[in-house]
């Protein structure tokens, strides 16, 4: 397996100046992945450059904007503020893991239906923060949604429709739960991810 982080390896490193790498094994969107990483590689960079999961965006790169939000063992974190080595043995969910091959996740549908995105840059982070919220509180109030998303910035300032999108998703997920067993839809919307 190739070593990630080659792009910042000093070109003048002598032969004896080997870059120390560590093997990390993690589950990304339900799939087992492994990589050899330099400890200073950020989780966001492993996902984007290593695994080519470019749905995780790096916006501010200074722990402010939340565009790089992923779920780490189900908990929303800023992947630009964790080292990739910290993901060894853990589970990561990125925006690519939301939809199935044939169906959008209800949160994605909500963003589509309620025009919850304009430029779309903050959207992956918004959706993953929303997913964590809805798993904890399936019927959040508007205030609770705004509170839960307050670490995610939208430079288009499209917050109104983002909140509506999450409310839409909460309703859809609630309806799915109610209809579970009543019909055989059998989709896994709102599942563990």
């Amino acid at each position, binding site marked *: 397996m190739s070593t990630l982080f080659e792009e*910042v390896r000093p070109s003048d490193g002598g032969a004896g100046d080997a*870059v*120390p790498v*560590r093997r990390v094994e993690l589950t990304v969107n339900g799939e087992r992945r492994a990589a050899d990483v*330099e*400890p*200073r590689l*950020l989780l966001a960079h492993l996902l984007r450059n290593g695994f080519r999961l470019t749905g995780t965006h790096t916006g501010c*790169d*200074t*722990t*402010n904007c*939340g565009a790089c*939000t992923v779920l780490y063992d189900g*908990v*929303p*974190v*800023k992947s*630009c*503020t*964790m*080292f990739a*080595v*910290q993901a060894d043995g853990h589970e990561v969910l990125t925006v690519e893991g939301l939809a199935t091959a044939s169906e959008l996740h209800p949160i994605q549908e909500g963003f589509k239906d309620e025009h919850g995105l304009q430029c779309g840059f903050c959207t992956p982070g918004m959706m993953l*923060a929303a997913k964590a919220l809805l798993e904890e509180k399936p019927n959040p109030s508007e205030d609770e949604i705004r*509170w*839960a*998303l*307050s*670490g*995610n910035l939208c430079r288009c300032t499209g917050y109104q429709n983002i909140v509506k999108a999450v409310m839409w998703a909460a309703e859809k997920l609630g309806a799915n739960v109610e209809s579970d067993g009543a019909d055989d839809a059998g989709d896994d919307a709102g599942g563990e991810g």
Partner: protein
Amino acid sequence: MYPSRFRYEAPSTVAEAVAMLAAADGEAKILAGGQSLIPMMKLRFAAPAMIVDINGIGGLDYHRSDPDGTYRIGALCRHADLEKSAALADAQPTIAAAAPVVADPLVRTRGTLVGSVCHADPQGDWASVMVSLEGAIVAQGPNGRRSIQVADLIDGPFQTVLAPDEIAVEAVIPAARGARAGGYLKLERRVGDFATVGVAVSVEMSGGSVARAGIGLTAVGPATINASDAAAALVGTALDSDAVDAAAQLAAEAAQPRSDHRGSADYKRHVVATFVRRIGAQIQRSEQEAA
């Protein structure tokens, strides 16, 4: 942005971590939540030669009350754990008030109270809260453990008296001499910004009067400020408006704010006094409701 190169160690016990720190000759940093350390490393304000990641050490993620009322918060207890705890809301009202306003919800899932106190950022919320509660940090080093009052721990901006081979393993809040009350108010321009002003007030009420009081001030000086004169003005009173006014005045005088883009020094002093009055009024209201 990439941090400088470092050696990464992930010990599984505190003793192992202490040994690694001792061997690193002052060039190591401990990684707990990393929500201040990693941004500083990315900006190259910090460039430790070694990172000792303590996240794999079991049994440090607790917060609990001892039978005698002493409250303990482990080094891996996240802000979000404190924010979401119903038990804590009853036992530690000042901590419960501060937890939801630390940074933003995403930072709160990773960051830790103990790490924040040891980071000693003058704009950090937890050090003020801990100072108001006469809290201490327990540090483990090669020669065992010692307890350091948070008011003595911080000796300057981003500076503590911790030795390079010591790890802060828990925060300890002594048992109350009465019924606990308190609050934390913070002015920030937006969620996640550093505090313009933060004020922590903690009191212990016994027989209708204040048995103990503490006031800590965030972001209005080169380090967390222990407004002990202001707190002393509350002790022995019934927390009446006159006493709270006097404390508010003394707290504003204890503040050493600087004028900057977040506000003028006078404005920040005014906010300190206002926050002391507001928390005082909140406590009075809840005492009346309870009575």
